[in-house]
């Protein structure tokens, strides 16, 4: 009887431990999913990142040291002095109101360079939001009516998918209408974002790559059990899609500006891999890294990957304006999140890659 009770108790303890362990694993995935779903819809076009910065800040405990630079970038500083700083850019590529026509339609301009010629063509015929001083205003990017397209217009259909011809319909019938709704020149404009979960394996949506990286850094800070055990500083940079004028290679302005806040080196850039076309010729399993100029960090990264059984590939030399902003002045490396269809509405990241990157970050940032 006693032996039976002992055996039963032993197996019960095993079951409870297994459940707790599984819960820990599930919790990691669940809490990441919850954060992604909460933060993904928040707008952050270059120059208007504060909604996302504020949303990130709300999750940070008040006990840690939080600084902001003058552009609005957010920095969590390691109380122990920092042997490592993780940085990621939070801004997304958007537009600004360029003009308000007399008939109420809005023209658009871009504040940051287009990543490739076809970029603008994904947005006509879909929704946008104008972030005015009095609140968001919904709009649609107009297209010609199919039925009454003339033959000449059909031959020049590509013209309607060019920024030069973007016209936003907000329902306003005059300039006064549009202005009464709160619209003014230079208001930020973002294309609609739709977060999807394909087959339970892939997060998909415009800008999901950089948003995931911002969430991973936040999750890493939130997961630190004691802030005395923190081993890194964290920076969410703004205006990384805007470059220092005349810089060769291009340097992200927000990253250069944030040098004043940088307390710990080396620098580890966490970002979507900037050349997704390369991925076709490389294995898609696991992460990529650029050793850069941080030799010892590179060794730590390799060791962390090996400890967790994470496949890690060295990426070819690439032009990353965020990494470029640090390389000259600090030992710097980059860990890349593989992304499919970068800078399109169908941008995709694999859950498994996100979890792998999260493990790597935790390994590197907790004593």
């Amino acid at each position, binding site marked *: 009887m006693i032996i039976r009770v002992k055996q039963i108790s032993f197996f019960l303890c095993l079951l409870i431990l297994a459940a707790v362990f599984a819960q820990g694993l599930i919790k990691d995935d669940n809490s990441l999913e919850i954060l992604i779903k909460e933060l993904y819809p928040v707008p952050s076009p270059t120059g208007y990142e504060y909604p996302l910065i504020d949303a990130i800040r709300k999750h940070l405990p008040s006990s840690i040291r939080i600084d902001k630079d003058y552009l609005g970038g957010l920095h969590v500083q390691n109380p122990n002095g920092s042997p490592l700083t993780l940085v990621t850019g939070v801004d997304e590529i958007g537009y600004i109101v360029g003009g308000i026509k007399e008939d109420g339609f809005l023209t658009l301009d871009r504040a940051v360079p287009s990543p490739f010629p076809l970029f603008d063509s994904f947005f006509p015929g*879909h*929704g946008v939001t104008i972030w005015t001083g009095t609140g968001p205003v919904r709009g649609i990017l107009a*297209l010609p009516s199919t039925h009454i397209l003339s033959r000449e217009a059909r031959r020049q259909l*590509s013209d309607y998918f060019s920024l030069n011809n973007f016209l936003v319909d907000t329902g306003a019938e005059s300039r006064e209408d549009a202005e009464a709704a709160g619209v003014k020149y230079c208001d930020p404009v973002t294309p609609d974002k739709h977060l999807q979960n394909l*087959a339970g394996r892939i997060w998909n949506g415009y800008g999901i790559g950089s948003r995931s990286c911002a969430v991973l850094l936040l999750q890493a800070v939130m997961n630190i059990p004691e802030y005395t055990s923190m081993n890194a500083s964290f920076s969410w940079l703004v205006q990384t899609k805007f470059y220092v004028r005349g810089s060769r290679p291009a340097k992200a302005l927000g990253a250069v500006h944030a040098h004043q806040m940088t307390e710990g080196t080396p620098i580890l850039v966490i970002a979507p891999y900037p050349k997704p076309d390369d991925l076709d010729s490389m294995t898609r399993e696991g992460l990529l890294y650029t050793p850069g100029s941080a030799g010892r960090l590179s060794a730590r990264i390799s060791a962390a990957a090996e400890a967790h059984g994470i496949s890690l590939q060295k990426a070819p030399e690439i032009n990353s304006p965020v990494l470029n902003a640090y390389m000259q002045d600090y030992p710097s490396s980059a860990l890349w999140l593989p992304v499919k269809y970068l800078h399109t*509405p169908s941008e995709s990241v694999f859950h498994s890659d996100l979890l792998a990157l999260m493990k790597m970050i935790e390994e590197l940032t907790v004593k």
Partner: protein
Amino acid sequence: MNIRMDKKIILAAMMPAVLFFISITCFGDDEESVWTQLRTLLMIPGVSGMEHPVADYLMEQIPSKLNPKRDDMHNVWFSTGAGAEHLVFVAHTDELGLIVEEITPEGKLKVSGRGGFIPKMYEGRPVTVYTAEDPVDGIVVPRPNYSGREQEAAHYQTADIVIDIGAVSDEDARQIGVAVGDQITIQKQIIELSEDIIAARAVDDRAGCAVLLSAMQRLDWGREWNKKITFLWDVQEETGLYGAAKMAEQLQADYVFPVDTFVSSAGPFDDRRFAYLPLGQGAVIRAVDSSSITPVPYVQKVMDIARENRIAFQIGNTRGGNDGSVFVPYGAVDIPLAWPGLYSHSFIEKIHRSDLNDLTDLVVALVEQW
């Protein structure tokens, strides 16, 4: 205590509540219902040839006392009354979209298109695949080398559309639930530009469907109008008026009133040489289009009834066909009615609430007074 005074005070206090109750039951509901019906209908998938979900919804909405019918194509209709003339009001339930034609060994979907649209609108966009079980999220993959320098935006055909649902093989895709023949729409959403203006996929012709439903709810079917009335929600209009063609032979109408879009040229890219009817100015008598010319006396009759009932209306000519045109060879007069709409056959078809209300009022008036 003055009981009489207390009663007066109580009654006075209750009056606002009583008046509010009267307002929402007698005045607010009718005008609200067509807009609400439209918003519901817009979210139901029904690509041409796959309209059964819409037919299911309609059959639930039509009271059994009207004896609704449904055929194997998923046309839905009811007929009531008797008399010398037979009036048919028709709206189509189908929308533009895609059908799964092939599942590749890599688990991607190749598709065919239903209806006329600009394929470029789909590139890179999220879609929904409606399987036999549950809807499945997917994306239209950007073209190969989408980030290259030499790309012509609109050089993108339906044959170029490849859909990724996250599957890694054809077996995986089938386990997710996708099958050849499943319908696909762009991810459905209603963009609210104001309280009275929305933009969405499938306003053409869910708006017409909503008008007929709302008119059906308002009309007193117990009355004797000395004519036969049919309300018909038909299928496959976008692919060739096939649903209407089958019903035209069966119904033998005298007058047919298709309720569909008036493609307005009030959009910023449209040539205003014709079809310039702004939104918010009233229901449209679509006097001339690519498939019919309504004889002037009948246009005049509709105008007279509209004026008599103080219903705002406009008259115009546009492009595109209508379901009523296939009734004409069987002896009917085709009198298309419409609402002015912008950005036809896009994902942002735009409509104004007051036009929909006016159109519903017009259909009710025509049933009662034609």
